[in-house]
Structure formats: structure tokens, C-alpha cells
């Protein structure tokens, strides 16, 4: 009836599906890459340069630094800078670029939009932490003032982004933080994590993998050139100093603020033990956090394990007269105090 060679048919099929895969695979597909190159225009280049200058105001920045940091071609950067000088956003001090007042305001606006987006992604969407930064990097160039205002008001005009960085207000006000890097604490010091830097990405992912949370209190056990060891919420963590430097802490001095050592994560509760809930970590956000509060996971509530799962997860907890099962990644964000 029909004659053809099935081997060829199969080969054609395999080739076609490989091409489709290479073009469209998530994030790294050729199609997405080409599209993102195509999308780069002056506005994006200028705004990216502004941000670099803003974040590195203490350093003296030349063109080479920008080429390295941003990964654009030299010519793209140079033409961007030319336009910025024309627009009175930057000026040269010798070899170094410096922001003008207008440039500074513009940069602050970009930072504001970026952090608002991160906050939005954390509160209102299900994107993973590791993706917030990348998406916000894209969105910050596409959002105008009106949209930024709406975004802020839909979030209740937040003060901090999910990494703990302050969000500048539309008038350029920015909350001050006296934070120091974790690596700057001495042995025996107690600190509270208020910020985890999402840049560079490699270090950020390493910190995420350790399940270290913003808002956690910690006590430094060891701090030398090879490692920083600290105790927090029932567990001990060991980090390389370079990693620890990306975690910013507030030193806790007042005794009443210091949590007792028996404050641990809910995952540390064992069957037949009873504990009192101390609170929910700042890492639990948005609907997820509100739902936990609604269900009675509030400070002071008594909690115990009701059922253990055959697979070990989720665990059913008994709280406020009801049995509610939670997965470990949620239980980790609930702090308890054992009797």
C-alpha cells in the first residue's frame, strides 16, 4: 500500500525533535538566546551600566570593568556611554565614570523596580527563589513609572525585597541597615540574618542549598580563614569565608532579643514530643505563609507530630485541634521551642 523506509522516517523524526529541543529547551534554547540578543537596545544597555555604577559607587569604574561585568561587546558599551554623557547621566573623571545626580536618581529608580519585581515574584507567584533575579533583570527595563507605582501599591508599598535589601521609595528614600557580613562576626557573637546577596549567582545557589533563611538567628562557633561555623535553629552550618561574606547580619546585643538555644525548626521535632511554635520564618512568604497562619501555626500554639508518613514526608502535625500535613520544606520554615 504505502512503501517507505521506516529507518529514514525515524531518522528524520529524531533530527527534527533534536532541532526543536535545541531551539526551545527552557532557558538555554537557541531561540531564547537569539531573542534575548535581539532584544538588547540602548535603553537596556544604559540602564545596566547605571546599575553597575550605582552598586559600585565606592569603587572607581572604567569601561573594562563594565565590559567584564555586563558581558556586552565593547562597542555596545561605548556607544551606550556616549549617549549617557549626552543625556547628562554620567561624566568622566579621568578614566573613571561617575554618576551625575540625574544618573543617580535614574539608577535608584531601576533598583526600585528591580526589587519591587523580586518582591512581587516572591509574594504573588510560584517562581523559585533562584529565578527571581533573572526575571527581575528583564522586567526592570520594561516597567514604566505608572506600572511601578501600581506594582508597589498592589504589594502594599513594601520596604524590603525578599533578599532583605531595602526598596527605595518613589521619592528616593531608602531604609538604612547597619548590617555587617557574617564573616565579620567574632566567635560567640550572636547575629540575625537580614540579607542574602543574590549576586554572584554561584554563591547564592550554594547558600540556598544549605537552607539558610533570612531572619534566622545564629551564633558563631568558629571563624577563621578556612571556614565560618555557626549554630542556628538547631543545626550547625559550615561555610567558606567567601560564602559567609555574602550573608549580611545584624549583631544582636540586647539580651531580651536573644532566642534560647532550644528554638529549632519544626523538622527537628520528634514523634511523642510536644513543642510551642515560636514563629514562621521570613522565608515563608505570600499565600503560603498566610495559609499557615490561618491554619493556626501561630506563635504560642502547641504542636506535636500526629502521623509519620510511610515515605517519611509529609508529616502530619496536630495543631489547634486539627491534623494538618506539611512537607519538609514548609516545616523547616516554622520555628518551635521544645519543652
Amino acid at each position, binding site marked *: *500500500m*504505502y512503501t517507505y523506509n*521506516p*529507518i529514514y*522516517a*525515524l531518522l528524520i*523524526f529524531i533530527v527534527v525533535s533534536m532541532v526543536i529541543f535545541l531551539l526551545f529547551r*527552557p532557558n538555554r534554547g537557541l531561540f531564547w538566546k537569539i531573542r534575548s540578543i535581539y532584544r538588547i537596545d540602548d535603553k537596556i544597555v544604559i540602564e545596566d551600566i547605571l546599575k553597575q555604577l550605582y552598586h559600585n559607587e565606592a569603587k572607581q569604574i572604567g569601561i573594562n570593568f563594565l565590559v567584564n561585568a555586563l558581558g556586552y561587546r565593547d562597542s555596545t558599551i561605548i556607544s551606550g556611554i556616549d549617549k549617557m554623557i549626552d543625556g547628562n547621566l554620567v561624566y568622566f573623571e579621568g578614566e573613571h565614570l561617575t554618576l551625575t545626580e540625574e544618573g543617580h536618581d535614574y539608577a535608584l529608580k531601576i533598583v526600585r523596580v528591580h526589587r519591587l519585581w523580586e518582591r512581587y515574584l516572591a509574594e*504573588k*507567584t*510560584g*517562581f*523559585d527563589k533562584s*529565578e527571581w533575579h533573572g526575571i527581575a533583570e528583564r522586567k526592570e527595563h520594561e516597567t514604566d513609572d505608572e506600572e511601578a507605582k501600581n506594582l508597589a501599591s498592589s504589594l*502594599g*508599598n*513594601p*520596604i*524590603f525585597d525578599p533578599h532583605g535589601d531595602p526598596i527605595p521609595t518613589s521619592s528616593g528614600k531608602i531604609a538604612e541597615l547597619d548590617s555587617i557580613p557574617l564573616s565579620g562576626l567574632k566567635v560567640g557573637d550572636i547575629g540575625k540574618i537580614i540579607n542574602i546577596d543574590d549576586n554572584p549567582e554561584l554563591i547564592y545557589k550554594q547558600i540556598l542549598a544549605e537552607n539558610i533563611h533570612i531572619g534566622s538567628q545564629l551564633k558563631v562557633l568558629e571563624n577563621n580563614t578556612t571556614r565560618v561555623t555557626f549554630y542556628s535553629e538547631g543545626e550547625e552550618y559550615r561555610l567558606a569565608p567567601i560564602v559567609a561574606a555574602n550573608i549580611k547580619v545584624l549583631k544582636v546585643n540586647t539580651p531580651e532579643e536573644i532566642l534560647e538555644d532550644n528554638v529549632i525548626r519544626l523538622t527537628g521535632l520528634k514523634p511523642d514530643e510536644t513543642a510551642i511554635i515560636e*514563629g*514562621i520564618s521570613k522565608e515563608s512568604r*505570600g*499565600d*503560603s505563609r*498566610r*495559609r*499557615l*497562619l*490561618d*491554619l*493556626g501555626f*501561630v*506563635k*504560642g*500554639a502547641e504542636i506535636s507530630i*500526629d*502521623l*509519620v*508518613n*510511610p*515515605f*517519611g*514526608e*509529609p508529616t*502530619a502535625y*496536630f495543631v*489547634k485541634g*486539627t*491534623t*494538618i*500535613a*506539611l*512537607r519538609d520544606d*514548609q516545616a523547616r520554615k516554622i520555628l518551635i521551642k521544645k519543652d
Partner: protein
Amino acid sequence: MDKRNIQNIIALANELRWKIGDDFHDNLAEGIYADAAEIVEDAIIDKNRDRKERLDNKIDRIVTSRVWGFPIMFSILALVLWITIKGANYPSAFLADILLGDVRPMLKSFAASLNFPWWLSGFLIDGVYLAVAWVIAVMLPPMAIFFPLFTLLEDFGYLPRVAFNLDYLFKKSGAHGKQALTMSMGFGCNAAGVVATRIIDSPRERLIAIITNNFSLCNGRWPTQILLATIFIGAVVPASLSSIVSLGAVFGIAVLGIFFMFFVSWTLSKTLLKGEVSTFNLELPPYRPPDFWRTIYTSIIDRTLIVLWRAIVFAAPAGAVIWLISNLYIGDQSIAAWMIHYLDGFGFLIGLNGVILLAYIVAIPANEIVIPTILMLTVLVTGMHIGEGAGVMFELDSVNDTASVLKAGGWTLLTAINVMLFSLLHNPCSTTIYTIYKETKSMKWTVLASILPIIMGFVVTFVVAQLWRIFVN
């Protein structure tokens, strides 16, 4: 009231919010619970505070235990499916006897007495009525058995424990444990399974459950699988093994469906749906003795009849279309014959044929009428003298007769295997598609849920056909 004053209040609220900081919501929630605790302290004397002493907890310890949890779960599911399939046979045959055997000839002679032209009685009775009657006869009994049983388990409180037991597996594929239940519900009927996803209160996981429900082999597809496995797969092994092997093949298809469900769930959660909000929590409510008769009543009203009604609404026009394409001629061939002719090439490429593809196109309202349509169309194109004429769906009582019709239509073992695969992996029936739209209120997700399985179906049958032709033939 004064607009300016209102603006002032809102501005003041913004300023105060800045002052009291980020913890407002937490503080309020804690405050409410603190009040609640005080009130309860005054009003309640709980003489039996230790939950471990209660019956609920004792049952829970058994049904979620490492040893007993899974055997109990699978035997209950198997029992429910067995009762459904076995129990539905008799009422189905009874309904078919009445609706197809008695009522239809009556309608025919009634139409004849009114001097209906042949095409009008053909269109109305052989087309519209037959499709509707068929759907009622094969769909109603299994659903009327399956849903009440399921609802009884639900009302008793057992189902949340199943979700609890299986959540870990579903978490690995980015889904919610409750999807185990919507999936099981899908074994009865995908449309009902889609409605059941309402129990999943996390938006992302609910969408995943809706889009992948079609991978549960539904009631309308089990008979197709069983029939084809008996005719073609049972025949390649010695007679003593044939029933075991064909049963195993059907079971294998169902398991393959579960595998696809997990795989597609995982893919969706990592790609298209990763931005949807995800919140997990699973309440394990106390056990309650179900109110038996009320449950039977409401599950039949709420689930069975609603789904059946939707199916009928879609089946009636489909019946009309099936009759029309077989009886309207363009040139010297009926529309059906033309379409089969055009579809044959692609059908052959994926190891099927034009008849099968056309049957799946016109029988979109219900999987139940796919086999009758295939038989009718096969007779139509081969020119055999079986059945009741062009456009009249039929089924044969004897498996051997069915086999000979299909073989005359050019079916081979490959065709049978690919139809079994395609029956698992094709677009949801129109009732389910409509239900998906109702539940998601989104064209995007409805289209995705409709075309994703059929693309997978094409790919899988294509690959199987090529490999078969390379290695077997």
C-alpha cells in the same frame, strides 16, 4: 463624604504601614488566635485531650502505616474498579436491550407510520438517537456505581489519607498528593476527575492535575482496551495464557498512563507552570460515618447525571455528524469515504489507518462510541454486509465476529497495539474539554490540555510503528 478626605485616609494608612513595619499580618493573625485561645479557655472542657486515645488516631495509624498503608489502598482501588466493571455489565446490557433493541425499532416504525422520508428517520434515529442511547447505555451504569462508591470513601474521610500516603511521589513530580484522588476519579471519568481537582487549593498543582487527568484511562476506554487485547494480543500466546496476557496488556496500558501522568506533571511544573503560585497543606479531617442513602442520592445527582447530561449534549450532534458523513455523497463516494481516503496516508505512518483516525475525530464526544464507529466505517469502506447500513453504529455480540470485521479492515497486531496506545494518548473527550474550560476559565490551559496528549499520542504511535516495521516486519 469628601474625596479629599478619603485620599488623606489612604495616604495616612500608607504612612502608618511604613511605621509599623512588615509584620502587621503576622501580628494580627497571632492576635486573633490569642483571643480565640482565651475564649476557648473559658468555654471548653475537653475531658479527652489526648488525641492518641481516640478512634480516629487508631484508624490513622493503620491506614498510614508502612506495612498496611499501601496494601489497603491498592485493594480498595482494585475493589472499586472491579465492582464497577463487573457490576456495570448487567445494567448496561439491560439498557442496551431496551434503548437499542426495543425503543429504536419502535421509533423506526413510528417514523415509518408518519411517512418520514428515509433521510429524516436516518438522521434522527440512526444518527442522533442512536448516539445518545449508546452513550447512556454504556456510560450511565459504570458511573452510577463508581461515583457513589468513591463518594462513600470520600465522606468517610479515607481519601485524604490516600493523598497523605502518596504525597511524596507526587511531590517528586511537582504535583499535589491529592492528585492521587483526582487521578483515581479519572479512572471512572475524566470530566468528573477534572471537577474533583477543586479539592486541590494550590493553583499550580490544581492546573497540573487538570491537564494530566486525561492520562487516567477512563471508563469509556477500558472496554476498548479489553476488547483489542483479547482479540489481538491474547491471540499471539497459547490459549491457556491468553486471558492472563491480555489482562496484563490492559493493565500495562493503565500503568503507562500513570507513568505519562507523572512525567507530564513533572515537565509542566518545571516549565510552563513554574510561575503559578504553589501552597501545600493537607488537612486530615476526622472520620465520619457516611450518611449512606444521602451520599448515594447526591453523588448520582451531582456527579453522574451532570456528567451524563454533558455527554448527551455532545453526543447528539456527533451522532448526526456520523450519520451525515456516511450518507452524504460527493461525486461517487460518501464524505466518510473521502475523509478516510485522505487520512489513510498519515494513519499508516503512525501504524493506524484512516478509519481509526476518522472515528476518533467524529467520536470526540465520548470514547464509548469509538469502537461502534470504527466497526461501522470499516464495513462502509470494505463493502461487507454486516450491520444496519451506512451511518448506523453497531457492535457485535461475538468477539470473533468483531475480530473478523477488523481484520477485513486490514488490522494487524501493530494496529491493535497502536490503537490501544492511541486510546490512552489522545485528546480528552469533548465533555472533558468543556469541563476543563469551565474549571480553569482559560482558553490557554484548555487548548494545552487538549492538544498535549494527542501530540504525545502521535509521537508514541509513530515511534512504535517505525520500530515495529524495522524489527518485527
